């Protein structure tokens, strides 16, 4: 292993976040490896989204620090693409799919510059990759939930970032889109991009993810999914209630 690949794509140390007096994250240490597909899992309210948002500077942390590819976030912003939860944006906004994807080129090109032919090629390729080329001219509100998520992922693809961070990318979308987008993410990972996502479906995590972080305000376990998602850890994260239910959801 070369030293460079030892540096995690995203690492957080002693990260604590509180909403009011209630801690949302408590002294979290995590290191998501480079070139891998990682998932953050945990029960509702366990701080999964907060972890991503705090790591990207979207919510203020009480303590802790974050490194992207070994550098402070401030210096590495161009190398990070972020796909927020779908309900955080205004879908009535007067913008087309293509314009959303073009937005992904501006962090690199500069916000006051026009896009070049090269940028447009990246935009076309990203639209093509998620199967949205035929819908590029549509206003985003006229898309289905799955198509909206595809547009968001296309924007992240167009950024050509080394680290892709997705917050619940598969929440509330159809099985077909989930399969298509998982394939896109797997291909990206195989091409060397680091992927970190919040995900709620433990079966998918077992099947496709290389690295998992099990969270419930504090870190329960981190490492290969098979070990992290062991019954004992899941009981500690999700509580005994699931354990006594006979056939708990996680015990697939």
């Amino acid at each position, binding site marked *: 292993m070369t030293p460079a690949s030892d540096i995690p794509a995203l690492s957080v140390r002693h990260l604590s976040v509180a909403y009011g007096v209630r801690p949302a994250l408590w002294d979290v240490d995590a290191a998501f490896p480079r070139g891998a597909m990682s998932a953050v899992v945990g029960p509702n309210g366990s701080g999964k989204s907060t972890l991503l948002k705090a790591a990207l500077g979207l919510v203020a942390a009480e303590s802790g620090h974050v490194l992207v590819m070994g550098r402070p976030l401030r210096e590495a912003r161009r190398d990070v693409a972020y796909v*927020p939860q779908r309900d955080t944006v205004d879908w009535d*906004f007067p913008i087309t799919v293509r314009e959303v994807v073009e*937005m992904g080129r*501006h962090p690199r090109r500069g916000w006051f510059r026009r896009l070049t032919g090269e940028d447009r090629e990246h935009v076309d390729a990203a639209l093509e990759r998620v*199967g949205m080329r035929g819908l590029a001219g549509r206003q985003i509100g006229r898309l289905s939930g799955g198509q909206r998520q595809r547009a968001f992922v296309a924007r992240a693809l167009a950024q050509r970032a080394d680290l892709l961070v997705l917050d619940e990318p598969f929440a509330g979308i*159809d099985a*077909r889109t989930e399969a298509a987008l998982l394939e896109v993410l797997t291909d990206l990972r195989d091409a060397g991009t680091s992927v970190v996502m919040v995900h709620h479906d433990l079966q998918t995590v077992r099947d496709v993810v290389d690295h998992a972080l099990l969270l419930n305000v504090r870190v329960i376990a981190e490492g290969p999914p098979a070990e992290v998602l062991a019954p004992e850890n899941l009981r500690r994260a999700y509580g005994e209630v699931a354990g006594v239910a006979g056939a708990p959801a996680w015990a697939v």
Partner: protein
Amino acid sequence: MGGLIGLIPLPYPDAVVALGAALLGITAGVVGCLAVLSQRSLVGDALAHSALPGVAVAFIATGAKDPAALLAGAACAGLVGAVLIVGIERGTRLPPDAAIGVVLSVFFSLGIVLLTHLAHDAGAEQAGLERYLFGQAAGLLERDVQVMAVLAAVALAVVAAGLRPITALLFDRGFAAVSGLPVRVLELLVTALLVVAIVIGLRTVGAILMVAMLIAPCAAARQLTDRMPVLLVLAGLTGAVVGVVGALAAARGQAPAGPVIVLVASAAVALAVLGAPGRGVLWTARRTVRARRRQRAEGVLVDLETAMHAGAPPTAAELAAVSGRPPAQVRGGLADLAGSGRARADADGRWRLTETGAAAAHAALESRTLWAAWLEHGAHLGLPDAREPDPRDVRGSLGDVAADRLMALAGGGRR
């Protein structure tokens, strides 16, 4: 400026008013879009009311009616109001709408008290109070318009230059922040632009109704376009036309300009909301009625086909009985089918399908099968892109190849 006024084919005082109203309309229309799209239009309302005490304080401080000083006072007070709104939101547990309400009422009260006090002192200034409350078009001077023109040019230039980052911020704040855009600074900039637009409009439209000039042009323009740059241009144009028409009408009728301009603006919004091609209320209503009627006819068509397979051609009453549809619906559907040549009645009132009707019934049945098959097997169809079918025309929207594969997945020729 004088040259420009000379170009307007109106008497000089009217030309000054028209130019001022156009500047106000363009700026309020364009900048108002930013407020509406960020769902902060009521902040604009609070800022307009907040500007009032600023005008009074500037008058007391300078002792003269220098328009630039009064506008500067209005701008300062507006910004203080904006800061207070943000401060109350962050520092207390009050929700944003309550913070806006608090700032609006406190500043407005302060403004009224100060202006009333001034009016008592200066006697002749009584008209000044009403002017800033309800606006006044007449009496706008060329030097006022000069100040307005400079402010409008700066505001529009800033919007044009910052369009991309501002769009990113308004559409997806999280993305903008992660991309390294200074979102706080941009938000402050948008607020400052709002203050500038308000300051330009304060004298003509008045504090109470200024918010309408921020919202109405955007609301009307949004009915006509789905593109941000086009929206801004259309909103600016709408604002300008509405401002000029309203201000000139108010000047003629000796009415306060604010209410007249706002009524004209509301008429523009009503027109756009009702009649905008493709998405006005009238169009949507017509589309809904047509879709329902089409669906009713198609349902009756399929029922009739099924009934004819089962036995003799049915009467309308028999068809209603076997299909479980209300008789009135069946009669309406049959009338539509007869009108389009898909079914006809014998002399004794028995209905049968025509040849086109039979073909249409088969197509409708296939489309239903295809839609059901899509819901069941769509994920395994392996479509190369993100297309999704139109339930009313699955074959047309997916293409023949995909439709045939769907039929195969659904179990071949099952009807």
